[in-house]
């Protein structure tokens, strides 16, 4: 073209007549214009239908949509799966939620810059091995004799940090640093070498996973010190729901409520929420996802931020690895293998963080994780095999991706 399109000013949004009586919409967002929500109900342009479709759109775009979805899911399934509401089961759902949340928080950052990190599962495996090898308080030559770690790092007496003062801390830092190094490699490959994120992290998933397995020759490392195990299992507050007059309460009737993993996960989630929503760094993350070229021209250190985001993702995976390894009481190279990836990506995407980038919130991820954990839990209660569970999850991811397309379209339509 030899010239730009001539002046094409967009009309400012005008609140439609239907909007006046509806709930007070923020000015200018165009919510009041119900006719635009035809992504939900095509053709529903007037009266009640329009209002309903607008409400449906509001719900879909709400921060709490997936929380409502989870609650609805529980309510629908409860008549068929009464065990779902058992205190023991609820406690179990909660305990499954925290480690996944930690990992999903990291993935949220990556998706927000329109990337993806498929390598988190392998980071969990490798960090678990590293932690296990350093912290183990004993070891069995019979199991590990072929492992490269045996005799070099690990012996019958355990790892080098066994019994060392502050050894636990050092071990944990080592696990996190393992994650950071992998994140650094991923980030540099994506930001500076222009390699596609899904391919870089797919290579990481396979290569790093294989490395972790090679280190122990696919065996688990145990035993781990109690102080470490406590991180995965320790209670702060437990709940007893039985009769008050029992002199002694059987252990199995006490349900964990506030646990170390809960505290750790919530601290990480809150920290991540603050980082993403309240700091300069967070603004840069959103800017890169929203419009990378504009961000570059506006002086955002795009490449450095991308590297940092991949580091965050991998460090979160390593932190998740601490919780998983502690709960399992072992360093296990295959910890994040296979369908774990589905849980993470699925939870974040269904939560509402967009695959297109520029849109993501930690609170959404919290609900997404809740939903996914409930999903896994109910599928387990139905006695489905792991393959079938994966199948359902695959379907749910597709549904989530379609929801993402729908939500994105809805947002755009409402904005104009």
């Amino acid at each position: 073209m030899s010239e730009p399109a001539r002046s094409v000013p967009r009309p400012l949004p005008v609140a439609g007549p239907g909007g006046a009586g509806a709930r007070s919409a923020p000015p200018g967002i165009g919510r009041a214009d119900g006719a635009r929500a035809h992504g939900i109900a095509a053709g529903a342009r007037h009266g009640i239908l329009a209002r309903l479709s607008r409400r449906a759109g509001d719900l879909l775009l709400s921060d709490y949509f997936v929380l409502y979805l989870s609650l609805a899911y529980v309510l629908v399934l409860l008549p068929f799966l009464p065990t779902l509401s058992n205190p023991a089961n609820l406690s179990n759902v909660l305990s499954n939620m925290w480690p996944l949340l930690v990992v999903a928080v990291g993935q949220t950052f990556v998706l927000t810059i329109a990337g993806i990190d498929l390598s988190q599962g392998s980071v969990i495996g490798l960090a678990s091995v590293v932690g296990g090898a350093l912290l183990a308080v004993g070891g069995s030559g019979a199991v590990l004799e072929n492992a490269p770690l045996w005799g070099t790092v690990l012996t019958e007496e355990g790892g080098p940090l066994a019994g060392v003062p502050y050894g636990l801390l050092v071990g944990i830092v080592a696990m996190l640093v393992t994650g950071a190094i992998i994140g650094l490699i991923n980030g540099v490959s994506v930001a500076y070498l222009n390699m596609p994120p899904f391919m870089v992290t797919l290579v990481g998933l396979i290569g790093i996973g294989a490395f972790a397995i090679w280190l122990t020759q696919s065996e688990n490392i145990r035993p781990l010190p109690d102080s470490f195990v406590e991180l995965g299992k320790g209670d702060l507050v437990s709940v007893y729901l039985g009769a008050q007059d029992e002199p002694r309460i059987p252990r199995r009737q006490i349900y964990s409520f506030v646990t170390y993993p809960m505290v750790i996960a919530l601290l990480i989630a809150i920290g991540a929420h603050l980082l993403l929503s309240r700091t300069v760094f967070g603004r840069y993350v959103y800017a890169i996802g929203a419009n990378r070229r504009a961000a570059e021209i506006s002086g955002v250190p795009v490449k450095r931020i991308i590297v940092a985001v991949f580091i965050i993702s991998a460090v979160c995976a390593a932190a998740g690895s601490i919780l998983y390894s502690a709960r399992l009481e072992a360093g296990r190279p295959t910890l994040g293998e296979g369908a774990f990836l589905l849980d993470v990506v699925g939870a974040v995407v269904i939560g509402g963080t967009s695959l297109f980038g520029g849109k993501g919130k930690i609170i959404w991820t919290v609900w997404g994780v809740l939903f996914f954990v409930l999903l896994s839990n109910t599928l387990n209660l139905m006695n489905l095999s792991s393959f079938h569970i994966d199948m359902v999850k695959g379907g749910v991811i597709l549904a989530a991706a379609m929801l993402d397309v729908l939500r994105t379209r809805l947002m755009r339509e409402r904005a104009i």
Partner: protein
Amino acid sequence: MTALLRFDDLSKSFFGVSAVDGVTLDVPEYGVLGLIGENGAGKSTLMNMVGGVVEPSGGRMLWRGEPYAPRDAAEASARGVAFIHQELNLFFNLTVAENLFVDGFPKRFGLIDRGAIRRRAAELMEALDLDVSPDALIEDLSAGERQLVEIAKALHRDADLIIFDEPTTSLTPRETVRLFEVIGRLKAQGKTIIYISHVLGDVAALCTHIAVLRDGTLVEAAPAEAFTIPRMIHAMIGRELSGLFPARTARPAEETVFSVAALSQPGVIEDVSFEIKGGEILGLFGLMGSGRSELARILFGLDSHQGGAIAIDGRPLSGGARERIAAGLAFVTEDRRAEGLMMDAPIADNLSLVSIARFGRTPFAMIDTEAVEADTAAIADQVRLKAGNIRRQPAKSLSGGNQQKVVIGKWLMQNPRVFILDEPTRGVDVGAKYEIYVLADRLAAAGGAVLFISSEIEELMGVCDRILVMSQGEIVGGFDAPPFEQSAILSMAFRQAA
């Protein structure tokens, strides 16, 4: 002389703003119609209607007397219209012959008849006097050769009407000469041609008829003999300027703020030097493809340069955009949508993007939300942004003019020393243009240096202290003080025409 194509009171408006307004014009059969006008005069919109890309909102077109209303590009192509765009529509990874046939190959035994496409391609190459193998990949061809392949495509489809949109910008003089020979031959073969160009000399030499557009209306159309270059220029201009521009409030100071010395990058710009004083607005006039935007990108550190130096207040600039922003440089790009704004993000987030680091408080660079809110609100006021809640309303909900104010505003938050404005009034209505001129004046009044890049001469004349003219990547001359003469500037920009 019969008309191959007739525009009958043809109009097109976008969102109520008319781009083409009641054009009635004959495209004479077997002729070469030169279509000229300033940027935004409506040439592209007019041609897009012929090409089936844009639907007219009023009037009609007649093709050999029959109503002609193509629904899409394919239908226009089937009718016999070939549109050779400035960006060529070729596939770099296919051969010359394959590019001709990509929408349908001749087959033999169910497979592509390579012999046939090669022969056909060779034939066309020969007709165009192009010495390129039909099996050569497009990526291995020069810009001129690619252009000729596009023409070969038009010949291959046996198009009756071939539209050239600024075909010579990336051609060497020799390639240009050859293109003109080819166009002459096409004419002799009975093709009808519409030739759009800013190189008026070419238009005068090549065309049998010339039509001049201005502000979407046809100003003049006549056989080429009736036109001289000054008359073309006169016809293209001719708007009353008074009242469209604010009075300047600042006088340039003595000290130089921004200096560029002997900047060069092979294939892009050559030996560009200028200085801007504090309080001064320097205009840079250049037509599409003159290298003005590329110069701006180099100044801002987005593209590299091989020779020369850039300095603010005598301190040399280096590094990328980030370093230059820190040194006091600001850049409003010509492509607001792709490079200026985060369209889905709230206005306030756009406003604070450049300067957000300033609001970081220890620890962890937590943003001082109240300060950001206060500052973005103040800036929104300062640029007289017409918006609702800037913290919730996304940038894309704004009109073009208000979007541009957001872009300017986000730089203002940084208090830059030097402002590069690249086509800041593109796609902006008249009222908002005025406000952008006021902003440019205020930037200068605050002691800054402003580089105002534009392809609209009037606005440069209205707001600038000095004007430089760029053509083919070089500064070809300048005008030191108002009053500026429009035709002199255009003549200089068209220096290749002479």
